[in-house]
């Protein structure tokens, strides 16, 4: 039967509105759709899969959720070739070898020695095991960019997400005391397996509207002049209409605005854009495309 995470009673979130509010207090501007999905994570104990383009704050969701719930955030960054040794656990070999040497003269049977060196103190806990071993309250487990890991790992993850237990052959099965809240993110560089998707709630993060992006800029950069902020957001929204290899996300908006502020600009003109163009276009081709499209035109 599904097991649900247990938040500490005082941190429990009453409804979606409260969640939106709490997120905003921590500087994360969210819309109702995302807040609803996150709320369901805390209530139903299902994992949440967030997809969307890079730089739109997917990872941030987990961080803020952990802060709201007042629990630990455990993060697993996926990459190609990620294996059990770096995701779940590994034995501390050096320590084991030393232990064997030390125990050489001790009168014990081989079985006893084996039991000793495969004890808990020789186990290096990697993120997934950590998330299961947490003692006090359900942590937030962030599995970042799951699309980068290979299918084999995805299959392993499935097993973990349904039972929240890990088997270490030398020790036996470890079951989670507190089932973690799981947030998975994906940049959609490959299609995830249906089985995994089935198990998760789904949320698609799109580029924000002008109003929302303005709100984000105001929240994250409290010192920014209203005019400059508006111009940056307007400009970036125009850039997104171009067909760049890498469209700028909200991160880029913030970078661009921050750079303009650091350069002492009060408004965004062609020169200011040229000086901060590296914040927006991340390759030579994109830069060229941007220039060809006419920076001046996009600013107006």
């Amino acid at each position: 039967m599904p097991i649900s995470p247990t938040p500490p009673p005082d941190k429990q979130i009453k409804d979606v509105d409260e969640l939106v509010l709490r997120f905003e207090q921590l500087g994360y501007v969210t819309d109702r759709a995302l807040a609803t999905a996150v709320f369901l994570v805390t209530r139903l104990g299902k994992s949440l899969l967030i997809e969307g383009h890079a730089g739109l704050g997917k990872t941030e969701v987990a961080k803020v959720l952990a802060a709201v719930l007042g629990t630990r955030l455990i993060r697993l960054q996926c990459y190609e070739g990620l294996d059990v040794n770096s995701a779940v656990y590994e034995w501390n070999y050096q320590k084991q070898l030393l232990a064997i040497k030390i125990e050489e003269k001790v009168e014990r049977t081989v079985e006893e020695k084996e039991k000793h060196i495969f004890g808990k103190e020789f186990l290096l806990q990697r993120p997934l095991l950590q998330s299961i071993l947490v003692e006090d309250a359900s942590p937030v487990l962030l599995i970042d960019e799951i699309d980068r890991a290979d299918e084999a790992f995805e299959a392993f993850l499935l097993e973990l997400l349904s039972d929240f237990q890990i088997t270490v052959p030398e020790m036996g099965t470890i079951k989670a005391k507190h089932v973690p809240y799981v947030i998975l993110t994906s940049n959609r560089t490959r299609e995830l397996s249906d089985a995994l998707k089935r198990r998760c709630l789904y949320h698609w993060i799109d580029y924000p509207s002008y109003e929302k992006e303005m709100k984000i800029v105001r929240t994250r950069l409290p010192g920014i002049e209203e005019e400059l902020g508006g111009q940056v957001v307007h400009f970036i929204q125009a850039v997104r209409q171009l067909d760049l290899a890498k469209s700028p996300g909200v991160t880029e908006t913030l970078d661009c605005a921050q750079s303009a502020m650091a350069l002492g600009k009060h408004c965004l003109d062609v020169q200011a854009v040229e000086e901060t163009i590296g914040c927006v276009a991340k390759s030579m081709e994109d830069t060229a495309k941007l220039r060809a499209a006419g920076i001046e035109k996009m600013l107006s």
Partner: protein
Amino acid sequence: MPQAEINRSAAAITEFCRFARESGLTNGVQQTLAALEVARTMECSDSQTFALALRAVLTSSKQEWDLFDRIFELFWGASLNASGHDSKDDEEPRFSAHRPTASPQALMAFSGSDSAEAEREGKAVSGASAQQRLQKVDLADVPQEDLLALEQISMRLFRKMSQRLSRRRRIRNFAEHIDVRRTIRRSISHGGDPIVLAFRSRKPRKHKLVIFLDVSGSMNSYSLFLVRFAYALQKSFKHVNTFLFSTNVVEITDLLHTRELPEALRGLSERAAGWAGGTKIGDSLRDFNRRQARKLLSNNTMFIILSDGWDTGEPEMLAAELRDIRRRAREIIWLNPLLGLEEYAPVTRGMSAALPHVDVFAPAHNLESLVALERYL
């Protein structure tokens, strides 16, 4: 904001889940249960929020996410998206819709009915020498009556090739690292001295393959064998995604995933786009780059283009798109049937624009040359 009045009784929600499934979502019983649980936990929330919650539960991909609004509207008669900006863009046409065009007759001739096959079998070329000859003959010049024989040979050769590919990997598979974990385990009985070493070797990782197959008029006589070639390659690679292109692109990966090739070819003829028409390689690649490249190309992907390089599009665009692919993929292999002709030189505008970005440029005019490709893969 048009508020959706949602009936939250279990019956209504179950009915909605069923409706969503019939309308193209992939939700199952589990999702229905989850939806019911949502109804229970979110009793006092407003309808809008409740609808958003249903979306989170019932969808599982961007496509479904976009579809949900319409399904929702159809069922409850009110729009989900009051705020509007959630689904603003991306109403892109899908990666080439099924466009009924004149079905390529050559194709049907190939997949031929059983009776025709039996009838011809007697006449088919037999004997080793004939087979040898057929392997070398230019695919464009194969006489009609030899086609069937050639087809059989090609299947056999390609099958052999895929077997060889996988065996080659196994032999290369030697121990690279010491497996410390197992070594320690074994060393316990020697008092901690690692006498018996345990090795661990890298798991051979199969490459992924993207095949881009030209089916324009100039390639007509080769296209069908090349499809077969793509089919055969599927067996020895982790993933093979196959696309046909002429003036636009169609993905046929799913069609080639059948056990029986004739069946696949029949499906092909229904889906082919602009078969035997003009060629716009640059445009096609651009289409691919926009929609699929991010998903399919990675540093262990080989990109194979099968085309004669007769391009009516802009060579600059072709070069730019190839450069894009080159940056994402491991290798670009361009197979050109014309390269088998002695007098051929790759001087067409398209071809000469493309060459600087291509890693391997090889012929693909007869079976022998196709099988020889093995060494690049």
